[in-house]
């Protein structure tokens, strides 16, 4: 079993639309949406949820005013200034470190585990799909990303699926690090803009840092061909293979509005043949 993780650095480069299109081209894949705090792939896949699981992670402190003797030790020790002068913990600011709980002489601090979100095992028209929804303003997105990837791999192993296709989160921080470790390869979807290039360079460095083989795909490449050339030169210099160039195509957005992949919406759309060739190149490289 191999896992391809699609990432981008910069958000909005077309990661999810391209991932969904690739899912339709793949032979019996398991799909995984690892963009857990703004998951979108389900809007195209319309998955039928088979199992819903709670995601418990992290803790939040709560001070029982009845037992609190207002000694002030918790306020003194809290490095997040999450405890007000009248001994109320702000759950948004609380880091869940437990220092107040541990040091309270009165046992006045409660420290329950958080229900931080939900994750789902579903069936889509392209195969099984594992996805999640992190609770709003929650932490531990990295843990949830690791969990959905692990579950997708389990399904692939038990059903003898040979490929997991994972839609990754934007950025280079915690959830992205959790999304790429151990993958057979990452496909970096970038766009030919100053910001697309800047953020692509950072994720190429990140993939290198964690020794995950990377390849790039340039979406909307014709919006700025000189930037496209710059990306191609950068990729060549860094030994990152280019999986292909996809032209700007309004069908990409229109298909999303119809909750379809690009190929389902218009198999004759200009971007289709480009995405098809990206897919065959990805399979060669993976």
């Amino acid at each position: 079993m191999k896992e391809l993780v699609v990432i981008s650095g910069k958000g909005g480069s077309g990661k999810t639309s391209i991932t969904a299109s690739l899912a339709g081209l793949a032979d019996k894949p398991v799909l995984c949406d690892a963009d857990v705090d703004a998951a979108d792939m389900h809007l195209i896949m319309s998955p039928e949820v088979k199992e819903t699981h709670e995601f418990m992670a992290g803790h939040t402190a709560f001070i029982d005013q009845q037992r609190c003797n207002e000694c002030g030790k918790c306020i003194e020790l809290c490095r997040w200034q999450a405890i007000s002068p009248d001994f109320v913990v702000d759950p948004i600011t609380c880091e869940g470190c437990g220092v107040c709980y541990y040091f309270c002489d009165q046992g006045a601090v409660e420290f329950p585990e958080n229900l931080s979100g939900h994750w789902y095992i579903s069936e889509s028209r392209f195969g099984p799909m594992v996805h999640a929804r992190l609770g709003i303003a929650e932490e531990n997105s990295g843990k949830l990303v690791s969990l959905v990837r692990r579950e997708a791999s389990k399904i692939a192993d038990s059903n003898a699926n040979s490929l997991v296709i994972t839609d990754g989160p934007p950025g280079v921080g915690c959830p992205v690090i959790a999304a790429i470790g151990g993958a057979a390869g990452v496909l970096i979807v970038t766009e030919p803009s100053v910001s697309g290039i800047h953020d692509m360079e950072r994720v190429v460095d990140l993939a290198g840092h964690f020794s995950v083989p990377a390849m790039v795909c340039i979406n909307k490449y014709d919006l700025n061909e000189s930037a496209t050339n710059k990306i191609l030169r950068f990729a060549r210099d860094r030994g990152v293979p280019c999986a292909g160039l996809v032209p700007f195509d309004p069908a990409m957005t229109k298909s999303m509005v119809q909750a379809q992949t690009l190929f389902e919406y218009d198999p004759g759309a200009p971007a289709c043949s480009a995405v098809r060739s990206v897919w065959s190149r990805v399979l060669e490289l993976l």
Partner: protein
Amino acid sequence: MPAPAGAGMNAADIKERGFQLMIVSVASGKGGTGKTTVAASLALSAGQDVQLLDCDVEAPNAHLFVYPEFESEETVTMPVPVVDEDKCTGCGECVAICQFNAIINLADTIMTFPELCHGCGGCQAACPAGAIEEGKRTIGTIQHGRCSSLDFVHGRLRIGEAMAPPLIRQVRSRIIPDKKAFIDAPPGTSCPVIAAINDTDFVVLVAEPTPFGLNDLELAVETVKILELPCGLVINRSDIGDSAVAEYAARENIPVLMEIPYDRAIAEAYCRGEPLVEAFPEWKSRFAGLYEHIERHVAQKV
């Protein structure tokens, strides 16, 4: 004890000190909707005494559109434990308090994993032998620059570093009181966004009128509601999809502050790094008007 990486001067602190200021954050849920375009355009149209802070430290892009001349750079660190093995008795109190598995007992030796440490200082406070000292882990850099009258600050998360929020809080602590501050926030709905937009005076949400845009806008609105912040909506590429975003905004009573239609010329200028309000000067007065609108709205609430 030195101040932790997480604790800069936040907006509440600044206000307690009696300064007048205005902090506008620009957020979106979904990435790539035009947050940076809107944040930079607001900053470039809001007149004098303006500061732009790029808090999207994982993918900082605002500098690519305002061309600041960087004047200084500082390294940002977080406190991490360093165990003095000569003093350590192996009692395990530090292991018991750590919620993040950053300090473990392996065959009677205390080992630390600095990259997992949140810098709470619990292990140090718990150690009865005084065997834990505070070391540092570099999480990124903050660069300061200027672009004519605009003061610019951004954070850059070190590649391989997982924790963005402490760096974001440090960037925010560089807010200069008495200036109008604009914050370019990261995408998503979790801790990095909270760190960037919490305690700001107004949140400008930027969305595109597509199913992905709507889904992520709904998440962003829930986030803003939890934080009890006033917000308004800018619909970018307002004619590319469907009307569901506008209908949602009407239902939720979220004012639509501006619509920016799709225009290939705008997209191409963006690709080249040209700020919208300079490539298309007619947008400058619109963004100045948008800022005045926000200012009036905030003044009324106060």
